[in-house]
């Protein structure tokens, strides 16, 4: 083979092997993407407690009217709009200075949020030093509503080094046609092993269960999350786990938010007594026992907010679809097989303009 042909072959091989797939699909279990802050800060040496936070940050658009979840009419946001919200999110994080944060709906490479890698940006602007990211929605183009290129998902950010992290695939929605499913979200559990001083096996686990499925996909997602925590428990590991479970706490006063969430111009709103179909994402009794989905978690592990407190009043509600509404349902949780410091669980409801979810924090005791 002469040099010219060899060079041609090498160039062609490089081009072909480096081609990028249009839509990214995932193995059942694969390594998550690891991050590190541009400049790391010093880590606490001998903490007796850890502050853990979970926050669905709505990809850094605050309460801007996104078409997908707030009766909005926009799908693409400017760099300035996103940066303004990210500044406020970082200010909130820095004021609390958590040791570990479980993020949901965080974008890393999305046209809708000016392609800002929000994991890297938050690492670079807080005391958090290391990160792990698992894509929930990754495609070079979403051919709908001008969404375009997207990479959004869950992340664990930590002051301590993340030794390894796995992305665990959850079942896809069962109530969609094939084409929609192909371009739709691939939800996951992200499990990160964190190197905390004097701890051999400490994990942070985050998930974001389906919001809009009207079949029992959510049941499968919560079951998978529980299975993963049980595996850690049975291997004598410690964990903090949580996220936006898109489920109401057992015993919550209401499981029907169809009327609350309706958009202007909606002609048919099905409420609890009407039967279905109910508004996607606003009804929490689509299948048997859905209102009690989280019971096994409350029965087995320590919650950031004890159940009786969580369902009493509105102090710990974490979600509303519109910033003009008060927080009206609890969807965001932290559970652990460590001890939660009594009364440390807090729902930060002063964040109503920063996301459609409020962050939840608690202190856990390290043995």
């Amino acid at each position: 083979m002469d040099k010219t042909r060899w060079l041609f072959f090498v160039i062609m091989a490089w081009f072909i092997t480096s081609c990028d797939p249009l839509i990214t699909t995932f193995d059942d279990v694969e390594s998550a993407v690891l991050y590190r802050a541009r400049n790391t800060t010093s880590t606490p040496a001998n903490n007796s407690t850890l502050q853990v936070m979970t926050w669905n940050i709505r990809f850094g658009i605050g309460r801007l009217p996104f078409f997908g979840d707030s009766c909005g009419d926009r799908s693409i946001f400017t760099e300035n709009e996103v940066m303004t919200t990210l500044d406020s999110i970082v200010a909130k994080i820095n004021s609390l200075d958590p040791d570990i944060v479980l993020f949901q709906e965080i974008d890393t490479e999305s046209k809708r949020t000016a392609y800002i890698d929000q994991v890297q940006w938050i690492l670079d602007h807080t005391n958090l030093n290391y990160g792990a990211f698992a894509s929930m929605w990754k495609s070079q183009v979403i051919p709908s509503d001008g969404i375009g290129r997207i990479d959004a998902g869950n992340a664990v950010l930590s002051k301590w080094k993340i030794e390894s992290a796995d992305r665990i695939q959850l079942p896809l929605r069962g109530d969609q046609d094939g084409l929609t499913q192909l371009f739709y979200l691939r939800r996951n559990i992200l499990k990160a092993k964190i190197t905390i001083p004097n701890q051999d096996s400490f994990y942070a686990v985050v998930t974001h269960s389906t919001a809009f499925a009207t079949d029992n996909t959510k049941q499968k997602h919560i079951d998978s999350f529980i299975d993963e925590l049980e595996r850690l428990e049975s291997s004598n590991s410690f964990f903090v786990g949580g996220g936006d479970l898109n489920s109401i706490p057992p015993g919550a006063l209401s499981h029907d938010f169809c009327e609350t969430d309706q958009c202007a111009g909606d002609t048919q709103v099905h409420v609890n007594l009407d039967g279905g179909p109910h508004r996607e994402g606003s009804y929490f009794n689509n299948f048997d026992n859905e209102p009690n989905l989280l019971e096994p978690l409350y029965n087995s592990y320590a919650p950031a907010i004890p159940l009786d407190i969580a369902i009493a009043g509105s102090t710990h509600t974490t979600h509303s679809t519109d910033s003009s509404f008060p927080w009206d349902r609890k969807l965001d949780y932290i559970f652990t097989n460590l001890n939660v410091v009594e009364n440390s669980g807090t729902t930060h409801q002063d964040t109503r303009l920063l996301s459609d979810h409020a962050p939840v924090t608690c202190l856990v005791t390290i043995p």
Partner: protein
Amino acid sequence: MKRFAIILFITGLFCQQGLWQSGTAYTLPEGRWEVGLFQPARWGQGQAREISFYKLSSLFIPNISIKQKWSKLDDFVLSTNHTLLYPTPLLKKLQSPLGMDIGEPNMFALISPEFDIPPVIIISNMLLISMPLYSDRILTGKIGVSVAFGGSGLAKESTIDLPLVYHRLAVLYNGWSVRFGLDMNGSIKKSISYLIDGDILLIPGMKGDMAIEHKGMLAWKKSHRFQVSLGYKLVYGVYPDGYPNKNITRTHLLPLIDFQWARD
């Protein structure tokens, strides 16, 4: 020798008169039409002038190109190609191909309906020089400049960040772009010809400011009137990014197929 003479004859017949070869400096013989399924329709309007336009897409993107052959010095042929495009109807259609509003769901919309699309035109001018090489090959060099008018009101967030599309429409947002290219045409057999080309598109001053494209095509000529082409396109593109990088690179391999018919 006999074989060489045949190849030379075929080259002269099919190549040097521009038959089936839209990328060279040669123009179609006067009166000849060539129409491809995906390739533009071409018409030899005069002895040294060719007019072409994209057919189906003309409904949404009115366009016309004129290629004028200026001179032939020794074996060199020099032409210029001038294209006028009005992409506004296409861009508006891409905001809602199925006539849906945002969130309905608005399937297949590649541009968010939230953006206003103003009237905008693109004018492209290209200089082409073709020269025959040994073994029946033709080498064509190209250099071109595109300018856009009326795109200043376009939100930069309304770009379509896809291979082939982004760098061609980037002129709308940037106001101008340049293009360099080399084509090699040749024949393998009497009825089988090939095309290998490479292009560089530059949009100075804009995020995602470059693309390198390479195409390889084999064409089978059933007759003077019909041709089938099969090939690939490799695109190495720089696309817009945000933080921490301003740009991101992607490589894509795309299949190409076309059926072309001709009439003299």
